[in-house]
């Protein structure tokens, strides 16, 4: 009986191991290395009671006319980190401090920087909301689209995700929703934003819901 019990345990262990290995294989294959650790944390100090959700990679879509090309893990993480910085500096910093992060401008390529800090600032940031007493921020997985040239060299990586914030201000509660598409290009060691499409809806205390959009590219 003991041997049988041992055999049964061993069999169970083997089955479990095989299952785990199989699932790991399938997971790694089916995602094509798409999953990765969450992006770096916020660059601003949040209210301790507030909650934030770091961006995580979702599906990856590659367009190329090379025989093969892929978005390597390192680049994917760099782009994801850059998108996270955008969320931190444009959306969370105003809730934490009352204004966008001073480093917000640096996220953008010179082609679009003037518009991002000028005409499109209201759609791109939550600077208008002011400091929140507490908030909860969530985000959808980031859909990544990449374009590589005929040699497989990565040219652009676009991120598409939604960010929602439920916030409480001194004057009442607010709901903020952002549909964000940021297109990044390599700029030295960094990836900077060369184009964007954003749609922002805000339901601020004692006000009707307003929606603003901004679409800009380096031309």
């Amino acid at each position, binding site marked *: 009986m003991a041997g049988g019990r041992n055999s049964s345990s061993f*069999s169970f262990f*083997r*089955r479990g191991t*095989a*299952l785990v*290995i*199989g699932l790991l*294989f*399938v997971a790694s*294959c*089916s995602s*094509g290395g798409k999953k990765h650790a969450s992006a770096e944390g916020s660059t601003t100090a949040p209210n301790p009671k507030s909650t934030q959700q770091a961006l995580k990679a979702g599906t990856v*879509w*590659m*367009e*190329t*006319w090379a025989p093969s090309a892929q978005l390597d893990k390192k680049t994917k993480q760099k782009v994801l980190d850059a998108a996270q910085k955008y969320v931190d500096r444009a959306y969370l910093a105003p809730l934490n401090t009352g204004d966008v992060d001073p480093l917000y401008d640096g996220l953008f*390529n*010179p*082609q679009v920087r003037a518009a991002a800090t000028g005409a499109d600032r209201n759609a791109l940031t939550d600077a208008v909301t002011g400091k929140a007493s507490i908030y909860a921020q969530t985000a959808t997985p980031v*859909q990544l*689209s*990449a*374009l590589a*040239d*005929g040699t497989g060299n990565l*040219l*652009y990586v*676009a991120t*598409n995700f939604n960010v929602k914030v439920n916030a409480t201000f001194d004057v009442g509660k607010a709901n903020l929703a952002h549909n964000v*598409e940021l*297109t990044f*290009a390599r700029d030295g060691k960094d990836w900077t934003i060369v*184009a964007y*499409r954003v749609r922002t809806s805000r339901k601020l205390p004692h006000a009707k819901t307003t929606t603003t959009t901004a*679409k800009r*590219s*380096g*031309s």
Partner: protein
Amino acid sequence: MRRVLRWLAAVVAVLVLSSVGLFAAWLHGTHLPLAQGATYLRVTKIAPKANADEVAGAPTGPMFILLVGNDSRPGVGGARGDALHVLGVNPKLHQAAMLDIPRDTCWAGDKINVGNTHSPRAQADAVGGLIGVPLAYVVDVDFAGFTALVDGAGGVEVNVPYQMHDADSGAYFSPGLTHMNGDAALRFSRDRHDFPTSDLVRTNNQGRLIIDAMRGLQKKSQTAAGEFHLLALLGQHAQLDGIGVGDLYRLGRLAFSLNPDQIKNYTIPVVNGSCLPLGGGAGSLFADFRDDGVLESH
């Protein structure tokens, strides 16, 4: 042992199915419905720098692009520029205008379309000289390329302006919005026998089709992924001369920032003849176009 084998078989089956699914998805993402690797159009950068007034490579001043449909096809060589259109783009205003040049317009003692038989650059020199604008790029496509590209883009919705019934070109269309595949779009573009002014109406119809195609491509490029797909299509099937994919991306984004409904499509005035001299008003039309790439007084 059997259980282990069964597990292994199940794992392998799942792996194979996953791989097949992934491969199919990958194919779906990168497959372009055109002959693999065939070159269907040629994009030539004419000016050393498209525009001196640039910010980090993006044009900000008026820019002029020559679009050429050449008549090269089996049995017909030479690649004359039978469809000639100059797109003026003003990036600051996000506006554009198109001048349609009849193929038989006189230039330097000959028909202007002869330029393309030498090279796209020679065609650009001729058209640029006629209008008095510096052309930044030439996009040149032949019959087969035009047909394949329209098919590759999923066809084009053309607002047919009038009844067309022409046996020579095979254009049989009723007025109204019509979905055309590559072959139908070519027939629409070639019809001239339906109209008393022949090529003058035809060239205007070609301009109309270009703007309608731009409208359709805009709808298909509402996301970065859509833009990347079109760029991959271009990259696979365009011969790029002096221009990189980054330039194409910026040009594409520039084109997609325009409202096609606001693009004026204007055929230049010419006088009758076998080699058509410029008609009255051509000078003021060109001046209106030349200063900022758009038409304010026409």
